[in-house]
């Protein structure tokens, strides 16, 4: 099996596919007088495209726009401020995914709170925070739950475990995001003309291929579901351009070894059991109706928003352009802070912090490269 999976990063195969993509894109350019514009929705695709050099190599052939797919980057400044305020309380253990700890709020980051002596722990799995709560029954243990549909089922499982164990001092601060509402907002705003989507490989594991039918039926935009290794990404881009040339509008799945037609029904069930739709704030985009999931009221005892009184004011304004970057309107190089006041070691916005952020991807792999 591993030998087969290794083929997805085979350099010889990747090089050949890269040439194929270039040739096909040239045909598109001849026909339309412009490059095809493709948005990668998922933050891991943004990173994969930059790390593998595909984005740089396709610069003159395909316009690859980074979308709002990284959960850290889309988290609204107010939510970050609320999480940091939550961490200030005494007798609490705050558990978080690693990427969140360095995101700056209006007054410092979780990391700053940690260096001031607050008990803030990075966990890999939300279930780890449940185990921490079991070992520390006298402390309030709060997990900061962010994520898209890939992560929400894991949050649900942690809620299930905490509920079944009857942990009274465990709760979760949830601010999650859904892919469909944000894609609809982008397509309706038409600020960027998009020809097609590289659809998120991980989210699709949960939702399945069928979940994207609205793109075809309502917006006439095609998409390919692909993985994150160079061969999968290049194959996905090739097939998308081929569809555009054939004027076919479909969703095609090229990640069939993990993504099925109807997705993971267990994960979908967990989401339904523990969460309900809610309006969510998105960085740079404001509030989008029904664009997130919040904890159901049956589990209000596990909901940190209900348990703790957190009020935050209007966030401090910065020149950070993450909001525009998430909508595909700007590239990191358009931000006056990029690479100067804002670097991965001293980030100002989440796009520079997150391991899937567009600014971090550009800074690490594409500095000096004009896109």
């Amino acid at each position, binding site marked *: 099996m591993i030998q087969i*999976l290794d083929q997805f990063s085979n350099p010889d195969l990747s090089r050949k596919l890269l040439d194929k993509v270039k040739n096909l894109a040239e045909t598109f350019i001849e026909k339309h007088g412009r490059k095809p514009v493709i948005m990668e929705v998922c933050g891991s695709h943004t990173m994969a495209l930059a790390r593998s050099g595909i984005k740089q190599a396709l610069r003159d052939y395909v316009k690859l726009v980074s979308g709002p797919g990284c959960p850290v980057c889309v988290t609204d400044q107010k939510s970050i401020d609320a999480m940091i305020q939550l961490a200030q309380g005494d007798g609490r253990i705050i558990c978080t995914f690693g990427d969140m700890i360095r995101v700056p709020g209006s007054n410092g980051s979780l990391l700053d709170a940690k260096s001031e002596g607050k008990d803030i722990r990075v966990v890999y799995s*939300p*279930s780890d925070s449940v185990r921490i709560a079991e070992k520390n029954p006298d402390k309030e243990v709060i997990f900061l739950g962010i994520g898209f549909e890939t992560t929400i089922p894991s949050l649900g499982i942690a809620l299930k475990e905490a509920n079944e164990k009857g942990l009274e001092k465990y709760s979760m601060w949830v601010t999650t995001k859904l892919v469909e509402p944000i894609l609809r907002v982008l397509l309706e705003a038409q600020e960027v003309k998009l020809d097609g989507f590289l659809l998120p490989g991980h989210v699709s594991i949960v939702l399945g291929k069928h979940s994207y039918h609205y793109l075809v039926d309502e917006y006439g935009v095609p998409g390919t579901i692909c993985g994150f290794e160079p061969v999968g990404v290049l*194959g996905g881009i090739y097939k998308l351009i081929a569809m555009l040339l054939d004027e076919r509008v479909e969703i095609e799945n090229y990640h069939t070894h*993990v993504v099925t037609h109807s997705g993971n029904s267990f994960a979908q069930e967990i989401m339904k059991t523990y969460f309900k739709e809610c309006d969510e704030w998105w960085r740079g985009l404001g509030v989008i109706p029904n664009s997130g999931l919040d904890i159901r009221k049956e589990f209000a005892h596990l909901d940190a928003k209900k348990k703790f009184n957190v009020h935050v004011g209007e966030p401090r304004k910065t020149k950070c352009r993450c909001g525009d970057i998430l909508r595909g309107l700007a590239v990191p190089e358009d931000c006056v802070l990029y690479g100067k006041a804002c670097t991965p070691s001293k980030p100002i916005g989440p796009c520079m912090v997150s391991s899937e952020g567009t600014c971090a991807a550009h800074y690490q792999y594409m500095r000096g490269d004009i896109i």
Partner: protein
Amino acid sequence: MCIGVPAKVIEKQEYTAVVDVMGTKMNVGIIMVPEVSEGDYVIVHAGQAMSIIDEEYARLSIEEWRKLADDTNS
């Protein structure tokens, strides 16, 4: 947040399994892939196995990309 690295299931318990991720052993949840067997490869996200990797489909997809790469007419 996502690590799409394939993990091999070494030992299956009821709701969890020990997996091997590139030589490192870790415990992951398997509630969402109850049909998983020892020896299967899974994709893990945030401590939970999200899907079982289908070897046959992986092989077919590589074959398709090879064919495309070597096709001189397209």
